[in-house]
C-alpha cells in the first residue's frame, strides 16, 4: 500500500485536514493497521515540499493549528498515473514454495507432505477470509476476495505441482 499516493487520492476527492485524512485512511485502507499520526503529518509535509499539495488555511484552536491540504495539479497527475499504471505482478510465494519443493525432491524428502501442509495452511487462511467476507461490509468482502483469489491461485499451483511430483523428481535428481 503506497501511503503517499493513497493520501493524495483522498485529497483529490476533497481538501482535508490531517486528522480527517487519517480517519478516512484507517476506515478504508487501514484494516487493523491504523496509520500513525506522525506518519500522516510527515507524509503531508513531504508532499507539500514536492509541490503535490498546498496548505490552504490554518485554523487556530486550543490544540495544534489545523492545516487544510489541497492537492495540486502535479499531485493530481501523479494520482492519475498511479491509477492507470498496472501493478507489478508479484509471484512471490511461488518462489519460496518452488525452492522448497525442488529441494525436498533433491534431498529425497516428502515433498507431497509439504504440499499438503501448505494446502492446509492456505485453506485455513481462506476460511478466515471467508468469515470476514460473510460477517463484514462490502468493502471488507472486496478486500477478502482479493486475498482469496490470490490464495486460490497458489492452491492451483500446489495441485498442479503435486500431480507432477514424480516427473519433477526424475528431472531434479538426474
Amino acid at each position, binding site marked *: 500500500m503506497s501511503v503517499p499516493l493513497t493520501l493524495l487520492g483522498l485529497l483529490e476527492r476533497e481538501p482535508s485536514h490531517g486528522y480527517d485524512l487519517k480517519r478516512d485512511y484507517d476506515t478504508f485502507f487501514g484494516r487493523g493497521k491504523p496509520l500513525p499520526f506522525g506518519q500522516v503529518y510527515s507524509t503531508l509535509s513531504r508532499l507539500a515540499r514536492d509541490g503535490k499539495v498546498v496548505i490552504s488555511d490554518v485554523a487556530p484552536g486550543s490544540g495544534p493549528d489545523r492545516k487544510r491540504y489541497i492537492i495540486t495539479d502535479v499531485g493530481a497527475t501523479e494520482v492519475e498515473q498511479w491509477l492507470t499504471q498496472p501493478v507489478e505482478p508479484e509471484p512471490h510465494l511461488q518462489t519460496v514454495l518452488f525452492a522448497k519443493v525442488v529441494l525436498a525432491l533433491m534431498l529425497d524428502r516428502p515433498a507431497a507432505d509439504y504440499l*499438503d*501442509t501448505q*494446502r*492446509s495452511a*492456505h*485453506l485455513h487462511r*481462506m*476460511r478466515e*477470509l*471467508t468469515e470476514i467476507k*460473510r460477517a463484514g461490509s462490502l468493502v471488507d468482502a472486496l478486500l477478502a476476495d482479493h486475498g*482469496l*483469489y490470490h*490464495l*486460490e491461485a497458489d*492452491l492451483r499451483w500446489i*495441485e498442479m505441482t503435486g*500431480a507432477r511430483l514424480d516427473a519433477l523428481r526424475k528431472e531434479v535428481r538426474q
Partner: protein
Amino acid sequence: MSVVIEARDVTFAFGQTPALRGASVAVEAGEILAIMGPSGSGKSTLLHCLAGILVPDSGEISFAGARLDTLAETQRSSLRRDRFGFVFQFGQLVPELTAVENVALPLLLSGVRRTSALERAKAWFARLGLDGLEERRSGELSGGQAQRVALARGLVAEPQLLFADEPTGALDSLTGEQVMDLLVSAAREQGTTVILVTHEARIAAYADREVMVRDGRVNAPDRIVS
C-alpha cells in the same frame, strides 16, 4: 460434539475400476465438512457411499451409531427421504413442477399434507431471496435461482444431514458464493450437518474443515485417518 456419520475403511469399485481403496472419515454433528480432491479421486463416490446411494464393497458406514451399509435398499431409501437432504451440481429440479412444488417434494414424499407442505416450502422463498418465483418452472429460472430452489428442497424437511455434490459447479463465481452463503447460514440455523463435495478451494473455505481424497483414500490435514 458427537460423530453423526462415519466411513471406515470403505472400498468400492465400478466393475474392475477401484474408486475407493480404504477411505475413512468421520463427521461431527453440526459440522460442515468439505471433501476435496481432483477429478476421479473418488470424492463423489465417497459421498454416495455415506448417503447410502452406493453400498461399499467392503468397510462400514455408520449413521447415528448404527450401520447404514447393511440396511436393505428400502430402509436406506427411507433414511435418505426422512433424514438426509441432497443438492446436486445441476439442481435437478423436476421440470413439470413449479418451483414451490419442487421445494415441497421431500415433504410430500414423507406424507406431509399438500397444503402444509406447500406452506412450509413457500417460507423458504423469502429466506433465500426467491420471492415471487414460487410458480415458475425450472426452465423459467436462472441457474442461481434454480440452485437456490434446489437448496431449499434439500433443507425444507430439516434433514439431519445435507449432502451437497458440487452445488456451485454450474454457477459463476459470485452466484456460487451467494448460494454457499445461504447454504451455510441455513444449515447453521437449523443445525444441519453438511457434507460438501467440491474441487474449488473458495467453496471449501465455507466449510469448518476439509479432507482431501486422493486415489480413493482420505487424507485429513490435521489427522491422517486412512
